[in-house]
């Protein structure tokens, strides 16, 4: 545009002002891009660190079975080989021999688990292996006597102090049990509270105080719920420490306010005309709520509950306080014995000194994040699908 300095409409500062305006706009855009790139970099970093853990290296070994190997399975391999093969695999060998007596006198080929140091080296990470061992590994790789396979151990075994033998299974089971306890306690109580506050309670000072209180509860640091769980559930009621029961109860208290707030919002969104039509036909309050309001509010309540579940599932701090960071090699089957949950297992692994645990931790995070993201996506889809626009 041509500048017309003599025009009556010319404003001397206009250029500067417009420049500042543009700069302001780009600053805000930069902030958005920055926060999105945080997210992108963060996810990229976790996936990059974690995905190698879904593969595990195995080495081909031939074992000749005779009296001597049966009596001393640990002496089968020479010094170099025993530095490469996992102790966990060696330990399981005597059991296998006992189970298969027909092996005696024959030579069998196995794919043995490689230990974490060698595995890290093959994946191109730092390891503390000697140079001679590294050369040996290169040779074996060329001969295709070492290969990488899907890491089944990670998904189907529990925790272990031997990195290559450590898995996420017991944490997954622990999380499922804990969440079952949480949901059976929090959803009914939360929904019932929401129904009372929204449909039945008189609108007076006490109800208002209760509502403010519940909103506050939703914003209280989660670690304080852990203190509550420790002081009341464990010390007062004597619920077993580290158990999914106490963890689930603590998380239930934590997710109660979230469920109440979202259920109340869902109930509130049902138009008053529905209720009035019901009352007009002579229904009682409970009948209107049960047969008309609740079915209409159900998608909203469901979505809120799923989101609360996802949040509780990722929570660590209160569970550490109630002792759910136990070393649990085997998956638990009941809710009163010591267990661990996914985030707590991630926390435990992140504190391990061996480097191999870093990728295990990141792999655990990938599993946890995929569960949480799919739960949240499910919630969004359900809401979209069943949402009624009035």
């Amino acid at each position, binding site marked *: 545009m041509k500048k017309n300095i003599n025009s009556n409409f010319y404003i001397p500062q206009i250029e500067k*002002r*417009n420049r500042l*305006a*543009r*700069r*302001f*706009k780009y600053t*805000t*855009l930069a*902030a*958005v891009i920055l*926060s*999105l790139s*945080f*997210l992108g970099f*963060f996810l990229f*970093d*976790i996936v990059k*660190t974690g995905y190698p853990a879904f593969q595990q290296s195995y080495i081909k070994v031939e074992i000749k079975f005779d009296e001597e190997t049966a009596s001393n399975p640990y002496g089968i391999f020479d010094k170099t080989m025993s530095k490469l093969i996992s102790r966990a695999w060696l330990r399981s060998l005597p059991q296998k021999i006992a189970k298969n007596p027909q092996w005696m006198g024959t030579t069998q080929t196995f794919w043995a688990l490689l230990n974490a140091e060698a595995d890290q080296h093959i994946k191109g990470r730092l390891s503390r292996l000697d140079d001679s061992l590294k050369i040996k590994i290169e040779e074996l790789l060329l001969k295709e006597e070492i290969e990488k396979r899907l890491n089944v151990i990670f998904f189907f075994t529990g925790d272990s102090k031997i990195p290559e033998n450590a898995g996420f299974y017991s944490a997954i089971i622990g999380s499922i049990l804990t969440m079952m306890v949480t949901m059976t306690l929090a959803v009914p*109580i939360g929904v*019932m*509270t929401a129904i009372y506050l929204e449909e039945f309670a008189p609108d007076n000072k006490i109800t208002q105080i209760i509502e*403010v*209180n*519940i909103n*506050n*509860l939703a*914003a*209280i*640091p*989660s*670690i304080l719920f*852990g*203190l*509550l769980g*420790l*002081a009341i559930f464990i*010390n007062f009621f*004597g619920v077993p420490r580290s158990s999914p029961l106490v963890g689930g109860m603590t998380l239930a*208290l934590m997710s*109660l306010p979230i469920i109440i707030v979202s259920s109340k919002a869902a109930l509130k969104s049902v138009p008053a005309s529905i209720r009035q039509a019901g009352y007009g036909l002579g229904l*009682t*309050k409970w009948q209107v709520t049960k047969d008309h309001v609740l079915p209409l509010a159900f998608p909203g309540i469901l979505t809120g509950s799923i989101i609360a579940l996802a*949040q509780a*599932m*990722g929570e*660590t*701090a209160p569970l*550490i*306080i109630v002792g759910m960071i136990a070393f649990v090699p085997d998956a638990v089957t009941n809710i*009163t014995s010591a267990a661990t949950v996914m*985030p*707590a297992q*991630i*926390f435990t692994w*992140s504190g391990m000194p061996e480097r191999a645990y870093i990728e295990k931790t990141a792999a655990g*995070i990938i599993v*946890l*994040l995929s569960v*949480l993201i799919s739960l949240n996506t499910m919630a969004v889809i359900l809401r979209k699908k069943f949402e009624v626009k009035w």
Partner: protein
Amino acid sequence: MSNDLLFLLFFGGFIPILFIAYIVGKSKANKISAQGVTLHSQASQYGWLTALYTGLPAITFATTGIFLYLFDFYLIPPFMLIASALGLAALTLFIVTQNIKATTKARDLIENVLKNILILATLISILTTFGILFSIIFESLHFFQRESITGFLFGTQWNPDTAFLEGASRGGEDVANAQFGAVPIFAGTFYITLIAMAVAVPIGLFSAIYMSEYASLKVRNIIKPTLEILAGIPTVVYGFFAAITVAPFIVDVFAIFGMTASYRSALGAGIVMGIMIIPIISSLSDDVISAVPQNVRNGALALGMNKAETIKFVVLPSAMPGIIAATLLGVSRALGETMIVVMAASLRPNLTMNPLEDMTTVTVKIVEALVGDQEFDSSLTLSAFALGFVLFVVTLIINIVSITTIRRFHQKYKISNL
């Protein structure tokens, strides 16, 4: 006898009785109505009434028995308890069915019972707050009986090591007194929170401005949920990220300038915590900025302001209470955040202004005191509750201020989504 078997016995006996109660009640009502008498309520409601009145006494009785058992007041043998609860159910079933008449107001009675059940559920939700409050206050009082309050609030030395010996019952005359001066811990907490807010407030606020003022609806509907993913990521994941990626990065960067940073510096934990808080601030501020009426903007534009000036001088000032409230909520999140600081900040209480040194926070100390084989009533364990009490009071005040501010703001512009 195993617990599973007890549960099986109880519910195996209980649910059929409820079902029978429903059938019996309903058929009694049907029988009355077959005689030509008009019933007060519908027949099925008499069924529900019978079932409720049969179930509730039995459930109450069983729970009372379990509580007595838990508190060692009176040990009823579990089998006896179940048998008598089921017996009670059968007895009440009999009495209720006998009393069903055409004039029985079944519908109103059900209504009352259900309303009371709902009130009970509400009470549990409220009791949680008092549970937190009392458990923390009670244990803090224990702590302050041993250590002085002023020493705790204003002391600058935190040396609980000898309390550890005492906790392991190895305390004696020769060990020095434990010191519980929490000032370095509070200072570390506020410092890390400050760093987090320095990251989160500008980025979060500017993102909110972009989303609500500049972005098209379509873009906004993509950006907002994407940013909220950041809020949904578990904090233990952020902690890992801070410890493995951010901390070494900070050490490397400052090494270029010849400064030594700790691997557990306050800066690393603070920055990652800030990233975590961005969506809280951006999302709430976005709501608040969008709530400012369009008329206000139109007025400013009509006076010749350009868009940026409108935002800076008109929209933001009117949205300010809401933005401050959002920031306060972010602060309370940062103060109570645990996993990031446990994994990325230090255990050492350190009173310093240098963000490259290691610092500790209230939540780290709580976790440190409670993880381990301490006796529950040692001073170290109890100090966790005292710290928790301070945390509770501070976050509670911040939350109340911020929630009431946001609510007042929304009332001003006649919008109610909080």
